[in-house]
């Protein structure tokens, strides 16, 4: 007999996990299908010989994550969230360390960049009051031009961290910048003490307690539709029935691959085809020899040797702009291991079609240039490295199954398509990184909650 659920969640990223938990708490019977061997999506980690653990995306999130985790997960998870106080910028235009909160950024704008106090206050007020329903025609570039005309250095300080956080560019709508920036700039940058593995394990335990049926190694293959309504999913060759489906997979593959474009209206598909994916990423994972120490040089380093900020250059293969996330032992209490993750934004096309030989060559170059850059901050780093490995857009595509290895979901237009899915096919929902706003750890979790509310409404038919 085919197993029947109220809701099936395809994909266990932070959005899918949170949506599953909310629906289960609300009394629904939920199945969560995950293609990979572990939950978390891009909120993930891996272990390597020698006791190394590498976190992929635990770089830092806004303070709002505390309240969100407390409400939708547990107090214990919320209580493990701690602030990262050393956010360091170093590039040819400026070099300083900041706590990355509103007070300190206002101070920096005044002292380091000699911006008039009135302009600073007006800028912060403007971005703080931006919301989703505002005019979307103004770009981030135009926003900066309005407040800091011709000031490349200020543009860089305000934009570079956000570009790393969610792949946005100067050409994206100013409101997407405003919403994300004011979230981060309120009280600084936070992280989860214990590491991604502990967080995801805690979430998995809560899902189990709340009765969610979780299946790992279960890639969804098809979303079943009859009379413009979903009725089930085929995963791993097995058929499951349900009244609602939430896809936490890539938005475009949900529509084109799992469901099939023929089930949707033509003008909807036209909009789907216009949705742009965000860029992908490269990362270099550096494990420090057991027993070796690294002096505190900051938690998050935004470094570059490029003369000025340029959205396109940020994804280029010869990029020198990279973020170093330094994980000291206190991130995993009880251990004495250090690890460093160097991240850059990247284009899928630059890596997709390389021969195996050239791919290995370019990966080696990525590793070498990252260590060269790191040497400036940790002069004896080469001697301390025990393990090193690189990930490219191909790696991201392989593990997340996201089209073109997109590591930040879709651009702004994806949000509307994501939200309109249930109007096209009854009971079909999507949650995940879309529209820049619903991106990053906090955006993903909150979007999972928003979608859970819509699914709950659909299931209760009230």
């Amino acid at each position, binding site marked *: 007999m085919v197993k029947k659920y109220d809701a099936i969640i395809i994909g266990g990223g932070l959005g899918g996990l949170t949506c599953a938990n909310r629906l289960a708490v*609300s009394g629904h019977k939920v199945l969560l299908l995950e293609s990979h061997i572990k939950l978390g999506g891009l909120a993930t980690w891996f272990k390597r010989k020698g006791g190394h653990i590498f976190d992929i995306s635990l770089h830092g999130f806004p303070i709002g994550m505390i309240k*969100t985790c407390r409400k939708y997960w547990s107090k214990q998870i919320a209580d493990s969230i701690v602030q990262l106080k050393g956010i360091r910028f170093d590039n040819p235009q400026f070099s300083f360390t900041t706590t990355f909160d509103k007070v300190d950024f206002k101070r920096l704008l005044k002292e380091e960049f000699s911006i008039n106090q009135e302009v600073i206050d007006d800028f912060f007020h403007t971005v703080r009051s931006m919301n989703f329903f505002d005019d979307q025609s103004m770009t981030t570039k135009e926003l900066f031009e309005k407040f800091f005309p011709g000031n490349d250095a200020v543009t860089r300080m305000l934009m570079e961290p956000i570009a790393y956080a969610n792949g946005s560019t100067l050409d994206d709508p100013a409101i997407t910048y405003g919403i994300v920036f004011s979230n981060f700039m309120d009280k600084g940058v936070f992280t989860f003490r214990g590491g991604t593995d502990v967080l995801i394990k805690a979430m998995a335990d809560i899902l189990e307690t709340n009765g969610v049926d979780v299946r790992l190694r279960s890639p969804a293959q098809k979303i079943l539709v009859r009379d413009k309504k979903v009725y089930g999913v085929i995963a791993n060759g097995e058929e499951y029935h349900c009244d609602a489906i939430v896809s936490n997979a890539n938005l475009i593959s949900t529509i084109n691959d799992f469901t099939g474009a023929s089930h949707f209206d033509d003008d909807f598909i036209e909009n789907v085809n216009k949705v742009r994916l965000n860029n992908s990423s490269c990362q270099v994972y550096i494990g420090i020899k057991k027993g070796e120490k690294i002096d505190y040089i900051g938690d998050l380093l935004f470094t570059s040797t490029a003369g000025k900020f340029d959205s396109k250059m940020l994804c280029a293969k010869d990029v020198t702009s990279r973020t170093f996330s330094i994980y000291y032992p206190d991130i995993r209490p009880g251990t004495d291991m250090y690890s460093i993750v160097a991240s850059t934004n990247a284009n899928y096309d630059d890596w997709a079609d390389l021969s195996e030989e050239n791919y290995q060559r370019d990966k080696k170059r990525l590793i070498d240039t990252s260590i060269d850059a790191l040497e400036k901050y940790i002069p004896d780093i080469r001697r301390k490295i025990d393990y090193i490995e690189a990930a490219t857009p191909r790696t991201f595509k392989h593990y997340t199954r996201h089209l073109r290895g997109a590591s930040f979901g879709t651009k702004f237009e994806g949000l509307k398509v994501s939200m309109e899915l249930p109007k096209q096919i009854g009971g079909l929902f999507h949650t995940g990184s879309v529209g820049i706003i619903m991106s990053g750890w906090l955006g993903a979790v909150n979007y999972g909650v928003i979608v*859970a*509310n819509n699914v*709950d409404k659909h299931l*209760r038919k009230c």
Partner: protein
Amino acid sequence: MTKEEVRQAVLDIIATIAPDEDLSTINRDAPLREQAGLDSMDFLDIVMELRKRYNVDVPEKDYMELVSLNSSTNYLAPKMADK
């Protein structure tokens, strides 16, 4: 439910969403947003909780009816009269 019971039901829900807030001093006519430190996600939680506990739906276009305790009570009382 009487109007007073509806008011209490709303307060009970807010107490689970904002456990650290003192709700005994709430001004019934003033916005809840500032008084109980509620953000838009909290209002979404109230809506979901109302649906779960009382099978009452608040459509998105009516979210502003939940602005204060009194406006919430007035809006919900007819919907919850038979609960």
